[in-house]
């Protein structure tokens, strides 16, 4: 039942607004709203009960194994939540003077320093709201760099075909054309194709390493050289940073600019779709172009802001205020809980878990997309044989997994691998959970062979059976309308 269907005219949560309704003095009648917006009218308890019950209809990290590849669904420490929501942090207005902001600013400054070191970049700005905005900031900086050098002919960004959709979309938002290069059989980028693609029109390349196919790009240094020699810059999509945290640094690989998905690698919660934080880090040559504001340490040891005035070549502001502050606080808290030694462990155990699952699933007869490669923090299973021989495809497997109490892996991405599952267990899952998932996959495989229709009708144990996506798009119903 929708909250609207529980509405009754005149009902409300009386404690939640001022006790009396005052006049809107000074506002001309024709500017005043005449109708009453049709918001639900419910009591406080009705709202609490409704949303509490709604919440129970979700799978989440706090309730299920959630191996969604490329999304790094790991444990979000509860301390990050309670400490980021301390009254002093919640009450700080974004325009509060520095004298009333030293607590927050010191955290941001420290976080910038930690991120610099762990990525090997020269400077970091925390502004971008999510990965995609980090990408935007990064590509915009590449553009600002070429522009500043009057290197105007560079109109193309190179992107591997396996790249996340945000990469090409971002390049276009920054006014670039996108040139795709293929992925080789072994999962590496086609370096020959890259060589052919670069030229005076090349502004840069967007890569993630390990790539979205779950393998480490072995020829990364060669790639960096090719692009740099052509006058382009290298952009690192940090979505997969969890694979190499404290182990390899994008700066050392030759990247000029990176974004980090702090909601992935630094475990701020995904919140049902956000908020995230997409901090960007740069090599020396891009420092002048970083988005503002940034936290700075003054000579007297106090903290302040760097703004457009300090950084006249900055690409400018990206967010109304200074970014997703509460998310950044959570990332900082996480970083302090982990410490440098904990960071290395993140990538080590994320990699162990992924390789273990890959090995076990392979033994169980599942086809790995890159069977001869090490898995990184994630890996790809392709169910193309099942789709062809049994007519049970990746979507069917995914839905049936839900009945076994597991969130499905990422499906049908990367797009060049047919019927694929991108599986990312993360370091915070125990072997028991991995084994449970593997057993479920084996069980579903058996079901697919013997009870095909049953599998294709999954799920059965959730609040709804399989939903009709086509109907959702065809008969658009995007809001409640009283009947």
């Amino acid at each position: 039942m929708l909250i609207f269907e529980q509405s009754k005219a005149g009902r409300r949560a009386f404690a939640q607004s001022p006790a009396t309704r005052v006049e809107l003095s000074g506002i001309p009648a024709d500017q005043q709203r005449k109708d009453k917006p049709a918001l639900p009218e419910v009591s406080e308890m009705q709202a609490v009960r409704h949303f509490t019950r709604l919440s129970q209809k979700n799978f989440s990290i706090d309730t299920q194994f959630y191996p969604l590849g490329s999304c790094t669904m790991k444990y979000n420490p509860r301390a990050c939540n309670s400490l980021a929501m301390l009254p002093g942090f919640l009450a700080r207005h974004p325009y509060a003077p520095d004298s009333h902001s030293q607590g927050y600013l010191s955290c941001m400054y420290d976080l910038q320093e930690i991120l610099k070191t762990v990525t090997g970049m020269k400077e970091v700005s925390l502004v971008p709201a999510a990965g995609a905005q980090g990408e935007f900031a990064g590509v915009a900086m590449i553009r600002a760099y070429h522009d500043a050098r009057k290197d105007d002919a560079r109109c193309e960004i190179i992107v591997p075909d396996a790249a996340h959709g945000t990469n090409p979309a971002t390049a276009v938002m920054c006014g670039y054309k996108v040139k795709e290069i293929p992925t080789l059989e072994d999962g590496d980028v086609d370096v020959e194709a890259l060589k052919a693609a670069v030229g005076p029109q090349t502004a840069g390349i967007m890569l993630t390493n390990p790539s979205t196919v779950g393998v480490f790009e072995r020829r990364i240094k060669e790639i960096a050289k090719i692009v740099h020699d052509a006058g382009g810059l290298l952009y690192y999509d940090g979505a997969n940073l969890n694979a190499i945290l404290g182990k390899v640094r994008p700066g050392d690989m030759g990247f000029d600019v990176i974004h980090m998905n702090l909601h992935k690698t630094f475990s701020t919660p995904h919140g049902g779709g956000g908020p995230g934080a997409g901090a960007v880090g740069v090599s020396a040559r891009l420092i002048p172009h970083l988005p503002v504001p940034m936290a700075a340490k003054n000579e007297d040891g106090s903290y302040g802001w760097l703004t457009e005035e300090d950084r006249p070549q900055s690409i400018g502001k990206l967010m109304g205020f200074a970014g997703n502050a509460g998310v950044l606080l959570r990332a900082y808290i996480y970083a302090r809980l982990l410490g440098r030694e904990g960071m290395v462990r993140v990538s080590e155990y994320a990699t162990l878990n992924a390789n273990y699952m890959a090995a076990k699933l392979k033994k169980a007869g599942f086809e790995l997309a890159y069977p001869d490669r090490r898995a990184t923090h994630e890996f790809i299973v392709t169910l193309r044989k099942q789709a062809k021989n049994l007519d049970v495809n990746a979507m069917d497997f995914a839905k049936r997994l839900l009945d076994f109490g597991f969130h499905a892996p990422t499906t049908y991405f990367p797009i060049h691998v047919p019927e694929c599952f991108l599986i990312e267990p993360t370091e915070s899952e125990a072997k028991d959970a991995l084994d449970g998932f593997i057993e479920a996959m084996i069980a579903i495989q058996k079901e697919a062979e013997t009870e095909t229709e049953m599998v294709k009708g999954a799920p059965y144990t959730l609040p709804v059976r399989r939903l009709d996506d086509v109907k959702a798009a065809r008969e658009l119903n995007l809001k409640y309308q009283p009947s």
Partner: protein
Amino acid sequence: MPFIPHTEEEVQAMLADIGASSIDDLFDEIPEGLIVTEDDLKSIPQGLPEMDVARLMQSRARKDGHGVCFIGAGAYDHHIPAAVWQITTRGEFYSAYTPYQAEASQGTLQLLYEYQSMMTALMDMDVSNASLYDGATGVAEAILMAIRGNRKSKSKRVLMPRTVHPAYRKVVKTIVKNQQIEVVEVPFDMATGQTDMAALQAYAGEDYAALVIPQPNFFGVLEDVAGMTDFAHANGMLAIGVVNPLAMSVITPPGQWGETGADIVVGEGQPLGAPLSSGGPYFGFMCCTQALVRQMPGRIIGKTTDLDGKDGYALTLQAREQHIRRSKATSNICTNQGLLVTAATIHMSLLGAEGLARAAASSHHNTNSLVEQLTAINGVEQAFSGAAFHERVLRLPAEAEATLQLLANQDVLGGFNLKDDYPELGDAILVCATEQRTEDEIAEYASKLAKVVGA
């Protein structure tokens, strides 16, 4: 090992299954020389137990957040019911991701559908998306959308009043400049604080894709939204409203502006349940007319049915989005501000139309009484004559920055200094008193300001 559940035995068993002899082996495809050394990371502090991190953060939090807040300027100290964040931070909302597996995410999906229903009701618009990053990026996305969606115009130019939040204008510039979009600023009337309608008229007949219309504008002043909307439509432009959502509970909503209403509406969702929290996370909202829905960026949730014919909710119109459409997507946005929308949906359910209207009216009332008391001080004057909602520009008889710092030293955060963004206003500040400010606090501000400016 913090947040890692593995026992040594398990590690060995897993390595055996993999056929590797150590965890290091798993990184053997990484080229020589790239593996980080201990030394590389030594400037990062060592890990601390939760107890120690808690002590650190508590001591830092205590340094901030004191002071009575009279700053608005896009972020407001409104009451948030305790229930909002207690429910929002439940693990099932907090630690889930984008509802890609609809059947396992009906909680989030139904909530987002309810959110869309609420926002369209509040704005009186046809459709809503499921959020953008914030109000500022919302304006940028609206401009990109208008340029894509305006069939009557081929222009890549838009009109932007200077009364739009200066930070929003900066963000718009950052985001649209690389696409050769020109943002032409329209001046304001120094007497009323409204957009200068005469100056706007000068653009009549020219090809612009859109006109941005703030309501209330950055000064708190109410624009002639009907006139501006009709002007836009008469000249083939789309009308993009930028509104304070709380204000829309008492002020004419964009769907009712002028003859046919605004085409796109965006704004900062913060007043709907997000704590001030240093400026984020907040969320941007976006609504539009039915005609433009396929140009809209961001997630959209639709109602559908399951195999048994039962109602359910799912992401829809995904063909607009980057993960399907890639370089031809309506935006690169992927992760949005879902959890804030969760909070906003609960917040709006708890306040209802009446509660929002009371919070809005009471904030307006408190600002009126603040302005009355402050302008009783010699030399403190209202800058504009235009009717204003909930925020007001005051001219000071002393240097604005210094005055604000002196007030801050006494724990009164007295307002937003307009000097950098609007030097033509002289020493002027933007003040605001939400429904949370008490009469005592307002009187205290007045008495402290009187002392500071020596009146």
